């Protein structure tokens, strides 16, 4: 009975020792390695063996002399993730795991700015999202300070500071009153990325036309069409002229050219001319010869 107990306990001790040997870092591996950095592995024992480093999308194999240190140059392992080191000798196999973590220094930024075009005067109308990567395009998972900066055509600058968590940060900005191109820049460390956002005029405001006679016809001309912030509405925008007389109606959809729209239309005594652009209505003119 005593012998049986002694054998059982002895077996357990040996098993635990082997388990500890297998999992307990006898290869001398660090628990984490920074992506792209050099590292070394101290192999235990003696004789010949093969060392495999297995990770996501990458496998390294080295023939090693057990008992010696195996060096891995900088850049050998660059994809962040969980790796397995397998030391396969003639008589035994050892396995250890470790993590390759992203470098802390930002080297690449992926910057998404939306929209690429929006009307002026939109609060929180512009959003920017940045993803911070190291030199090997691993998303940097430690908190990283970033700054957003939007320069508008009027010269005003909006700034937002943020912390990229799990590699991502975002901010919202206002579109300003002046049309033109904004420069939207994000910075992390000593690198930056820029996008261009177009601020376009809003709906026409105070649309007004005048009418004059030209032979048997009337020439209708708008004043320079502007939005409520004074920006010139872009050429090509459709302006609709309507003439109503005796229950009959004539319409022309005319695009703006050089900031104004002009049409020549048959003039009927007592006709009513009106003008509109999108949902914005303009003035009316009664035509009396």
């Amino acid at each position, binding site marked *: 009975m005593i012998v049986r107990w002694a054998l059982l306990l002895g077996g357990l001790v040996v098993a635990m020792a082997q388990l500890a040997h297998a999992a307990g870092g006898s290869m001398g591996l660090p628990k984490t390695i920074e992506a792209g950095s050099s590292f070394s592995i101290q192999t235990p024992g003696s004789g010949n063996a093969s060392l495999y480093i297995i990770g996501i999308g990458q496998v390294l194999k080295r023939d090693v002399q057990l008992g010696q240190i195996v060096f891995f140059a900088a850049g050998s392992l660059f994809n962040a993730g969980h790796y397995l080191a397998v030391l396969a000798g003639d008589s035994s196999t050892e396995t250890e795991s470790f993590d390759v973590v992203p470098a802390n220094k930002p080297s690449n930024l992926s910057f998404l700015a939306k929209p690429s075009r929006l009307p002026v005067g939109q609060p929180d109308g512009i959003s920017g999202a940045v993803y911070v990567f190291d030199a090997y395009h691993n998303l940097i998972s430690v908190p990283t300070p970033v700054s957003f900066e939007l320069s508008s055509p009027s010269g005003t600058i909006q700034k937002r500071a943020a912390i990229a968590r799990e590699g991502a940060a975002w901010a919202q900005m206002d579109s300003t009153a002046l049309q033109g191109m904004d420069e939207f820049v994000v910075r992390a460390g000593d690198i930056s990325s820029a996008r261009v956002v177009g601020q376009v005029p809003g709906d026409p405001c105070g649309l007004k036309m005048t009418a004059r006679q030209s032979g048997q016809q009337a020439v209708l001309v708008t004043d320079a069409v502007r939005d409520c912030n004074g920006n010139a509405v872009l050429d090509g925008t459709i302006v609709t002229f309507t003439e109503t007389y005796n229950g009959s*109606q004539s319409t022309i959809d005319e695009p703006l050219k050089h900031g104004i729209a002009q049409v020549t239309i048959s003039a009927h005594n007592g006709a009513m001319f009106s003008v509109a652009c999108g949902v914005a209505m303009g003035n009316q003119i009664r035509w009396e010869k």
Partner: protein
Amino acid sequence: MKKGHLFAALLGALTVVLILIGTEWPVPSAAAYAGGGGLLRSSSTPEETAANLVDEIRMQAWDKAYASLANKAQFTEDEFKRDITGYYPSLRTYATLESFEVTPLHESADEAEIRVKLHWSTVVGVSVSTRDLHMMRNGDHWEAEWPIVKEAVVPPQVIPVNYLRWDVIYRGPGDDWGIQDVEAPHVRIVDMHPVERAEGLVILGELLNEDVVPANVSVTATLLSKSQSPIATEGSFDKISHLLLPKQVTPFLIEFSNVTLSQVGSVRMVPTSSLVSASADPVIEIEDQQLNPAPGASLTGQLINQSGQIVNVAHVLGTFYDKTGQVVWVADEYIDRALLPQTPIPFEIHIPQDLASQVSSQRTVVATYSSGGSQ
């Protein structure tokens, strides 16, 4: 087995008999299409003469049709043909005459007025045109005078056109994924209204391009039941002006056949837009728009191409509103003639009889197509 052989023999014999009958006494139209002479009836009445003429037009027997006319001295055969098929490429150029109706308007011993209604089959559906023929007795038969409409001649001139054109450069395959592509135009449904009709449910509305760039647009509607399960999904197809310039508004109409309003809990509308290259030219004036009351309620007017290029196909869309400004109907008409510069072309859009009394005002838009580029 024997029954099968007997049946086959009977079928064979029947086929041979029918072939013999068809050869000996062919249907006139079949004989005509087979080149075995015309469909021609006798020309002893004005109606028969008019029908013969239209049959020859249908078979594109231009020489025979022209030869039968009483007033052929007034125009050439080519002008007669162009009057029917169009002087410039248009919907009519590629249309075939599907059917026709002959209606006597007035008849005396030697003269008659006959109205022929021609149903043309075009790529966008049936197009109907009407001609009133003056008929004259000539001995023992009648002859038709063709009411030729000669195409207006545009004098040689240079029309300077400096309208905007928008071209688009999209994101390239080598660009970083963070680089934004050109933004799709922002469009908005500004009105939407379901109408129950005998043939089903119709969704009417208007779509605005509120952006500063041209948009190619369409609208899709999904009917949801009261339990929010989808009933059907349909698109506006051609009942919309697909190209919208900045701040332009188009009506749309979406039809759901065999669906009643009581089945519908809600409607999910999805307007889609994409940025396209486009030109602000040509500009079409819509002149003399007139709402004509029932019976035969319609919107009539004239299109005038104010630009220098020929418009091959014009699509007129009318939006009809009630007194409160709500859309009550959307209807359209394709113009089967090319629009020449500065040349008025009439249009007529029919309004359903039962809705005509509700219509208080209207708005008309024109979509155009010119060969050599979508406009």
